[in-house]
């Protein structure tokens, strides 16, 4: 047992950024690394490295999804993996001049929703190689893949399909 009435917290050189004193406003930093599992959707992300787009097809009702989901929202049954075509059309689009902080340095960028022949739902992605005024609804686009995967959905993006 140690009773020491002269005990002191050590002082250090770290300080706090103060934005204002009345009211007292300070900078508070917060950061976190998640251990994030793609779980039942993992195959989609792995397949991007093989230059494949994997969607889901309902085993029971046949509904075809352009994004993965292990169970069908129409009937609740299990789905199976389904290889999507790599060519589609612009269903709608925008060009973002601002964004959330993480993507600000990438602006302006185009977002599109892609429709694929014979698929019941859409796929959201980036479109590069075209300006706002070049893009139109119905525009043919094709998927391209990053060489060095980031293991996220940006491993696939779309460019204008000029072969059409």
């Amino acid at each position: 047992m140690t009773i020491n009435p002269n005990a002191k917290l050590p002082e250090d050189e770290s300080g706090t950024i103060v934005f204002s004193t009345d009211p007292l406003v300070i900078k508070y930093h917060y950061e976190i690394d998640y251990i994030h599992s793609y779980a039942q959707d993992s195959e989609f992300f792995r397949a991007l490295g093989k230059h494949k787009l994997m969607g889901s097809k309902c085993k029971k009702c046949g509904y075809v999804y352009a994004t993965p989901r292990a169970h069908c929202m129409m009937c609740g049954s299990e789905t199976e993996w389904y290889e999507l075509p790599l060519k589609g059309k612009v269903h709608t689009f925008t060009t973002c001049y601002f964004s959330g902080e993480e993507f600000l340095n990438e602006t302006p960028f185009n977002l599109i929703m892609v429709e694929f022949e014979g698929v019941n739902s859409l796929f959201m992605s980036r479109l590069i190689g075209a300006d706002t005024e070049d893009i139109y609804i119905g525009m043919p686009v094709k998927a391209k893949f990053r060489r060095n995967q980031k293991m996220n959905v940006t491993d696939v993006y779309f460019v204008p399909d000029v072969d059409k």
Partner: protein
Amino acid sequence: MKSKGRDVYMVAGGVTKFSKASPDMDFRLRVKKAFDYAMNDAGLTLADIDGSVASYFSDHFQRQLMAGIMVQDYLGLVPKPSKRIEGGGATGGLAFQAGYEEIASGRMDAVVVYGFETMSHVNTWKGNEFIALASDTNFDYPIGGFYTGYYAMMAVRHMHEFGTTVEQMAKVSVKNHGNAIHNPYAQSPMKITVEDVRKAPMVSYPLTRLDVCAMSDGAAVAILASEDKAFEITDHPVLVKAIGTGTDTMRLSDRPFGEVPLLPNESPSDYKGLKYPGVHSFRAGRMAAKEAYEKAEITDPINDLDLIELHDAYTSSEIQTYEDLGLCKYGEGGQFIDEGKPELKGKIPVNPSGGLLAAGHPVGATGIMQAVFMFWQLQHTIKKHFHDDYLQVPNAKRGLIHSHAGTGTYVTVTIMEAVK
């Protein structure tokens, strides 16, 4: 058979002035101000209150988990029952409905619904990032997570599908910012023109800075009561006639291409060949309206309702919502504003308060703010609370409030009625 439960009345409301940043008050004090305003207006004491519902959207913004209990504690409501409700942009609307359920079920005779958000804890771009975390973080967020981008894509498709124009969207901005000039609680009152809206910096094509609501700090409080309790408290309660709630897929890309759920004033022939909802319409908004209309026996919305406060986070979404609510048919939303129908002096005033675009959108407070403004409109006490009766809708007997999350993932519709 479904039980309707007990009748529910709103007896008091309070709102703090919404502002971009007000660091002089934390969320507890901000709610306390709105709470005291409501309590004093109705002459209530803490002993009258049986419990509460807390409404706030993002733990990221508050930088505090369990912020709800801190408000409960600060207001002097512990150890009474309470819970937190969260559903993105519709948090306030959902919390108001949860308060309704406390009364309707007979669990409580008087309940406080309080909502707040302190968005100024981070800069605007970080705030946009937090909001975008309310989109699918595996499939949507990493592409450029930005809600204005998602809404812009919906607007582009609405324009393609129905011929809606950017000028029609701009008119919504002109109307709502103009109305807010007479609302002392509003964050961004402005007299602007269609040209001003179009010349403002482009945020996400075709939406400019003036097509989009801003970040806000704010709080709002609504007090609900059973019939006996309500008439004990005030001679002028407002009946919460009916509630409706709809949902839709988190990912915009998963929305189906099916048929329109019809309202009583529509027929299948109105929508031949229209693939619904796709990404042009909010199916959750339509389902919420359908449920609320059925309970309130509303068969002709534009004639059965006198005014509306709806969730106009974007000018385009106000136009889309005219259609979801059946104020006009799908595809006629642009024409609806061209004809001046939602103007303050029009057929059915929409967002006389200025809406989210101009009054502000401190997320957890927003849906409750709508209830408070609607309550004052139906009580015919706008002059008392705004110190200006310009925005008082003269014939206000029955109103609709509409709260909306995500790209239309949760939507609430609540019908309120003047008692006399």
